[in-house]
């Protein structure tokens, strides 16, 4: 078993959500029924700059799609991964090479070696968590659908 909890710390997750402005989504699909499209659409709607990384597409969500992380012409804060777990070590190397701050691996994208490569390269790693869900938990409206956000606070909420 991978020790996943150290990649799911709530304070780290909230820090990454705060600090990030530009997100490269590796494996973003052009099919609007796929989970990656849901996440990309949502993040764009919430003001993040979303950059698709998918060699099989030229444009997704109205944004130019690049074949690899190295091809992305602007600085990337966060690399968000929707690929098979085996692909993670290679993606982690690319993420370190382009100097991204953090690597976020979606549900099921679990690969210890990939996580180690990213951490050794100075990146924050979140693993087996959904970027959309965590954003909705801390910033968004997940509580409107009866999901357990696990949040307990008497601080007045900001407008959503």
């Amino acid at each position: 078993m991978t020790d996943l909890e150290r990649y799911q710390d709530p304070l780290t997750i909230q820090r990454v959500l705060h600090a990030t402005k530009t997100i490269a989504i590796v494996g973003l699909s052009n099919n609007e029924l796929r989970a990656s499209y849901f996440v990309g659409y949502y993040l764009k709607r919430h003001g993040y700059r979303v950059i698709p990384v998918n060699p099989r597409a030229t444009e997704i969500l109205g944004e130019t799609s690049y074949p690899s992380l190295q091809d992305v012409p602007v600085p990337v804060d966060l690399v968000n991964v929707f690929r098979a777990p085996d692909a993670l070590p290679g993606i982690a190397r690319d993420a370190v090479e382009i100097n991204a701050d953090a690597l976020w691996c979606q549900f099921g994208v679990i690969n210890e070696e990939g996580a180690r490569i990213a951490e050794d390269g100075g990146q924050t790693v979140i693993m087996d968590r959904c970027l959309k869900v965590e954003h909705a938990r801390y910033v968004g409206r997940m509580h409107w659908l009866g999901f357990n956000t696990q949040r307990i606070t008497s601080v007045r909420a900001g407008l959503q």
Partner: protein
Amino acid sequence: MTDKPEEARAFGFETRQLHAGQRPDPNTGARAVPVFQTTSYVFEDPESAAAYFNLQEYGNTYSRIMNPTVAVFEERVANLEGGSGAVAFSSGIAAQAGALFTLLEPGDHVVSSSALYGGTVNQFKHLFRKMNVELTWIDPDDPDAWRGVVRPNTKAFFAETIGNPAGNVLDIEAVAAIAHEHELPLIVDNTFATPYLCRPIEWGADIVIHSATKFIGGHGTSIGGVVVEAGTFNWSNGRFPVVADPSPAYHGLQFHETFGEYGYLMKLRAETLRDLGGTLAPLNAFLFLQGLETLSLRMDRHVENARAVAAFLESHELASNVTYPGLPGSPYRTLVEKYLPRGAGAVFSFDCAGGRVGGQDLISGVTLWSHLANVGDAKSLIIHPGSTTHRQLGDDELRAAGIAPGTVRLSVGTESVEDLIWDLEQGFAHVAARAAEKVTTA
């Protein structure tokens, strides 16, 4: 995002029963949960409306499917049960139908405990038949009985934490292990225990159902129900194409792939609740939230009173077969110690001497216990199935249903316990006097 980062503190149950699911209202600062008595919600713009209907964004559309007051109730119950989320319904029976409709198709099979609330038995026997779903009843006290009846088309195991009315306590961990061996979800009705006394998800249950009408509401004011999912069941294991495959009812969406641990609940809300209706009213959700705020306090008191009443009945010459699982001599004692360490609830039955007439006379003799068909009220409740819910049945048929002619069911409330015992003594005195009368006039 302006919020101060929140630490992952493991807040206590009593804190969560007051706070989970709600933050002070962003517009007004209201500390109590506002009652959003509205059918619908104005969209910001056409693009937002489309995103809400496509489930690409969490947004309110129509109160048959979602409502901010109901959502606080849903999240609070999910939090207390340790689930990934919850969907509320207009009754416990509607919640149960919704939970099952979401995962069943015609031709499927369900294995269920036979020790269930009568309303559930009716639903399973008659509604399932109309849906062409087969059912096998098994003795819940024998974990191996579950294993022996699984078929290729079996889709779920169903049982109650504490059976109504005979007080069977489910060996949740053992039955969940058998369900999971067969890649099936275990569905548990936790109404009688409440999440304060038992949290079935912690022992492996996958879906928890409540009639919120009972102890959650706690004051006999509102009918409602809720479905909680653990969020850990693998709906993509090949046995549940109805949950995992592209859904024709939602333009090809694959709920489990797209929403992961929230997929089943998303489908339950966006399809089942949308199509069956059975929505919880916002005002009833508010009343249930008021109930939840004091759940632990009431349950401790219910249990304390139930123990005292059960002990009184056990020592009374006109009472026998006291089924309270919290009694030291109960056959469920080991299971109670494991699953219900804070107490085995407050609903149980006993047999009154004198058969059908004795049961009726007891009811006539009490003045504080309320004679009615409900449980889980702060007020003490009493009913004699032989002269009410089961009056059409002859003595033999009653016994076949696990009820003796003199069986009386109690839901022990939170009154001064000496008053409850005083009133039962009045009832028994009436039983004895009537029996003596019959002897003299005979």
